[in-house]
């Protein structure tokens, strides 16, 4: 799960990680109260959406920049009014952009130097890894690619936690001395504590800066949490912003369906994540374009199948459907019953190809054949994919 920058910075403050003073607003009438707590001088106004590239983004009405540096409260109010409720398009949002529902005011910091600092759960070592660099404020993947010697990596033993010598290694590696060295060691300890206690999969500060007063501050904050751990983190789960998610994906999650919207026109419904991915791949292989990823799981029942049909048919781009079920524990006749009920309930009006394999497959096929519905059967995955692509037309 992702959260907004302002939410991440509030978490940082709770964990003693210094951030510039700031306040968030969800409505125009909150601007004055929010700005009253900030000095009437250089401020930054930031659109809060779950996508990068905000500064270089453009709003759909032509207004430039989702992040603005301004000189006064009055200018801040003006910029925020332009952003709030407007739709921001960045290189990460896609052409449809994202509606800005919250703006965040922060004090503008004078910057001496920019750094990069992150903690990620690294699958190769099965451990948290701290990544730091003196090359902050730029794309870290470019730094890693072109000047890998400028990247500091420290692997933390999950059973021991971050040890002081490891924090020193990072702080010295970034060239800090004296008081700033002490600030950095403390910041690292606090950041790791946040990472571990709140089940983060990624904590990223880019840039982390030093100011003319000698302070170290996190100017940006990106935090991802492990979805599997949200059951034990009610405070974090409460930060979820449904406005940032596809309504179809939210609907799917209510029924324990794993759905991801894509931009093609052939919807698929599959059991199992790997087979669902492979089904998308084979649609593409035969020249079609998948409209979604949808894993109904190993134990889907008739209701889930019906809901899944409703969700995929609510996408106006969908011109046909491919159902691919390898019935193991889930029997094919149960699935067939679900498909028939669903097709009737949603008044299916688009081509449907069904490939069933596994337990009770003959009974399942018989049910589909006798249903009176226009269902195109297929025996193999390749045959099913070819059929639906021919019915819908190539992408």
């Amino acid at each position: 799960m992702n959260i907004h920058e302002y939410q991440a910075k509030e978490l940082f403050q709770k964990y003693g990680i210094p951030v510039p003073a700031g306040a968030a607003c969800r409505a125009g009438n909150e601007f004055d109260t929010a700005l009253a707590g900030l000095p009437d001088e250089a401020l930054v106004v930031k659109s809060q959406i779950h996508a990068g590239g905000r500064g270089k983004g453009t709003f759909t009405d032509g207004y430039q920049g989702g992040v603005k540096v301004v000189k006064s409260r009055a200018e801040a109010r003006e910029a925020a009014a332009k952003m709030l409720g407007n739709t921001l398009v960045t290189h990460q949002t896609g052409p449809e952009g994202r509606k800005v529902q919250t703006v965040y005011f922060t004090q503008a910091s004078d910057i001496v130097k920019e750094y990069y600092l992150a903690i990620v759960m690294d699958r190769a070592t099965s451990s948290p890894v701290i990544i730091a660099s003196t090359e902050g404020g730029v794309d870290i993947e470019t730094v890693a690619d072109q000047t890998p010697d400028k990247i500091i990596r420290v692997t933390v033993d999950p059973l021991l936690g971050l040890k002081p010598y490891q924090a020193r290694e990072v702080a010295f590696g970034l060239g800090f001395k004296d008081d700033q060295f002490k600030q950095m060691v403390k910041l690292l300890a606090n950041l790791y504590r946040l990472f571990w206690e709140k089940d983060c999969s990624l904590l990223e500060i880019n840039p982390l800066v030093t100011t003319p007063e000698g302070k170290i501050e996190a100017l940006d904050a990106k935090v991802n949490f492990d979805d599997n751990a949200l059951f034990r983190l009610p405070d974090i789960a409460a930060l979820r912003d449904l406005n940032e998610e596809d309504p179809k994906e939210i609907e799917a999650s209510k029924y324990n369906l794993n759905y991801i919207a894509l931009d093609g026109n052939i919807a698929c419904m599959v059991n199992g994540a790997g087979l669902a991915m492979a089904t998308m791949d084979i649609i593409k292989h035969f020249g079609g374009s998948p409209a979604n990823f949808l894993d109904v799981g190993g134990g889907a029942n008739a209701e889930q199948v019906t809901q899944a049909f409703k969700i995929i048919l609510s996408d106006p781009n969908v011109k046909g459907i491919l159902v691919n079920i390898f019935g193991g524990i889930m029997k094919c006749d149960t699935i067939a019953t679900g498909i028939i009920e669903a097709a009737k309930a949603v008044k299916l009006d688009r081509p449907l190809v069904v490939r069933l394999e596994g337990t009770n497959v003959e009974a399942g096929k018989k049910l589909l054949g006798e249903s009176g519905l226009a269902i195109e059967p297929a025996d193999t995955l390749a045959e099913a994919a070819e059929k639906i692509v021919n019915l819908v037309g190539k992408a």
Partner: protein
Amino acid sequence: MSVLVNKNSRILVQGITGKAGSFHAQQCLDYGTNIVAGVTPGRGGSTFEKKVPVFDTVGAAVRETGADVSMVFVPPPFAADSILEALDAGIGLVVAITEGIPVKDMAEVKGKLLSTGARLIGPNCPGIITPGECKIGIMPGYIHKPGRVGVVSRSGTLTYEAVWQLTSRGHGQSTCIGIGGDPINGTSHLDCVKLFNEDPDTDAIIMIGEIGGTAEEEAAAYIKEHVKKPVAAFIAGTTAPPGRRMGHAGAIVSGGKGTAEAKIAAMREANIAVAETPSDMADALLRVYKP
């Protein structure tokens, strides 16, 4: 012969009285798996299906029954604790079926695992089966057939697809291992490839991977250097968009890493027969394996 499990394996089921645990324990018993004990804290002294004794702790179950493999069906919030309990009780092979265990919990388990010498398969996996001898997991038993092809995969139903293609063409399997779709798991593709390579009763290997991480590349590098047996592979997720988690927590392309293209290139480099589509997995193997 086979790898890791056979008809002599003595299986313990953790979470045997739960909904999923009891259903699948019964399925495994029906297949002929030698289930010797169950564990559910607070249910010790009872009996599962009138024949399997249930214990409060793994330690007691191991002492009383000599169980040497554990199958874990415990719900996600408590699953890591159950795996640790099995490791502490001296279980040599833990098969964790549970889906949705927090990654942090698995990082702790992995840390502990390294100091015990035990093996963990999963979590979030279909389990392991040596056809005709021992089924530990949720895979449908009847699609398998005893034989000489080893199958390793992160994905459950995609494994069934490969197994079914083999069985339909008359080729059986030595052992099929589902290693699970989580970013941190106990056993890697590479571990399984090594086991199959050393097993005298495995003649060929199908390896099924998916986007995310670099485990498939590591296995391919090993195969290139050390494996003479024919290997076929399929990588799922060629069409998955970057930055989106495709069901499995591990299946995500991020920062340009873990793409299907990179994995397929590594496979070809190692002379592995790469299946063009998921329908082609058995045929890809049979193009290089002539039993």
